[in-house]
């Protein structure tokens, strides 16, 4: 193999970065959606009456059980069949975000359940209502305890954003395929470059989460698990 092809990648890097930026936008959208829906789902599973909890359980079962690429197709083509026109980007955030919420719910549920019940009682005894006791006492502890599991989920969904390629979102994989289509000799160098970009992004992301974990650490909280 001619080594000079590797230097030919350089001019394409800005295009790849533009694609990567779309992946980052997808990531931010889907992980925020997943966080909010995941916390709410976990709260329902732990605290709501049983029938409601069963509905939440069915929800996580569905989104953990269907392949991501199928979810993407369902949301993109499915919604438009119902007369809801969605952009590929929006469909990807929705499909991958709800899928992530199901996994995040599992992380948060375990964390909620690990907070000693006595603290909830103490909060109620002070006169805090149930929801406010959860917000001020259970949630801050549960979120801290969730960070380790959450960093796993972060790494996982970061890579999943490339699946949006399948419904035509012009993200990094699609940009890579455009470049490759014009010059097949670049196939390997291009995908190696894409791989390197994701490695850097995963590293930086986990570094940030690790920093947050250290900053938010409270003596005695990890020990109670």
């Amino acid at each position: 193999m001619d080594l000079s092809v590797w230097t030919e990648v350089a001019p394409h890097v800005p295009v790849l970065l533009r694609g990567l930026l779309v992946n980052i936008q997808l990531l931010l959208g889907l992980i925020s959606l997943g966080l909010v829906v995941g916390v709410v789902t976990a709260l329902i599973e732990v605290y709501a009456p049983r029938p409601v909890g069963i509905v939440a359980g069915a929800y996580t079962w569905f989104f953990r059980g269907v392949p991501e690429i199928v979810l993407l197709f369902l949301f993109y083509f499915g919604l438009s069949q119902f007369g809801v026109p969605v952009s590929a980007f929006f469909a990807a955030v929705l499909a991958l975000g709800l899928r992530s919420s199901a996994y995040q719910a599992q992380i948060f549920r375990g964390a909620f359940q690990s907070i000693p019940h006595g603290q909830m009682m103490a909060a109620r005894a002070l006169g805090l209502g149930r929801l406010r006791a959860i917000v001020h006492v259970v949630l801050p502890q549960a979120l801290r305890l969730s960070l380790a599991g959450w960093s796993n989920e972060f790494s996982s969904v970061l890579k999943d954003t490339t699946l949006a390629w399948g419904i035509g979102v012009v993200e990094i994989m699609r940009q890579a395929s455009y470049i490759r289509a014009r010059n097949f000799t670049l196939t390997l160098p291009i995908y190696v470059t894409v791989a390197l970009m994701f490695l850097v992004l995963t590293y930086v992301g986990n570094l940030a989460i690790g920093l947050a974990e250290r900053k938010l650490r409270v003596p005695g909280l990890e020990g109670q698990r």
Partner: protein
Amino acid sequence: MALLRVENLHKRYGHEEVLKGVTLAQDAGETKVVIGPSGTGKSTLLRCINRLTEPDQGRVWLEDTEITSRRTDINRVRAKIGFVFQDFNLFTHLTSLDNVRLGLMKVRGMPRAAATGRAMAELERVGLAAKANAYPAQLSGGQQQRVSIARALAMDPKLILFDEPTSALDPELIGEVLSVMIQLARDGMTMIVVTHEMGFARSVADEIVFMEGGVIVEQGTPDKMFRSPEVPRTGEFLRKISDLYGESR
């Protein structure tokens, strides 16, 4: 009129009836000590008073508010009744100061600066101002319990319920908690204390209530209860428990 009135309280867990009709009245400034073998409903009684446990039957009044009424805003009532737990139940993620401040800010709506001042004063009162920024895990059991007493005191409660406050402590840490409670009683705080500490009961209680099998067997002043109980079982229990826990404190 009594500050707190409990009328014919019943509570059943499955087949077991834990409270079989408990009636008592408590005046402001009074310290009542509830004693009795374990599993006789003492803790359940305390929890039914502020409805941490929902009683099956019976009524509870705090002054002219019926706590057990469905129409009563239970959170407002609870804010007026302090509760000190056997295992402290401090909020793990908060410092001593924040543990004491939480209720002031989130329940009473006090501004941060005022809440800080009040919380520091209460930590001072239990001798822990120096530990304001320590987390529960950095405190001994005795210190944790004193913070939890400060947390209750900060709310300006009309009444504090103590549920075996020294039972989870190492023997050498019991004294520091008891001395805080003794001072509170002398300052005129209204308290109901479930405990096995007979020394405390004898020296501080205005009235001792002996419970067994979900009912009040006998109640009276420490003098009467220790010297001339009417029910033989009361004397027998007091002798046993005094031998066990001592009353020299």
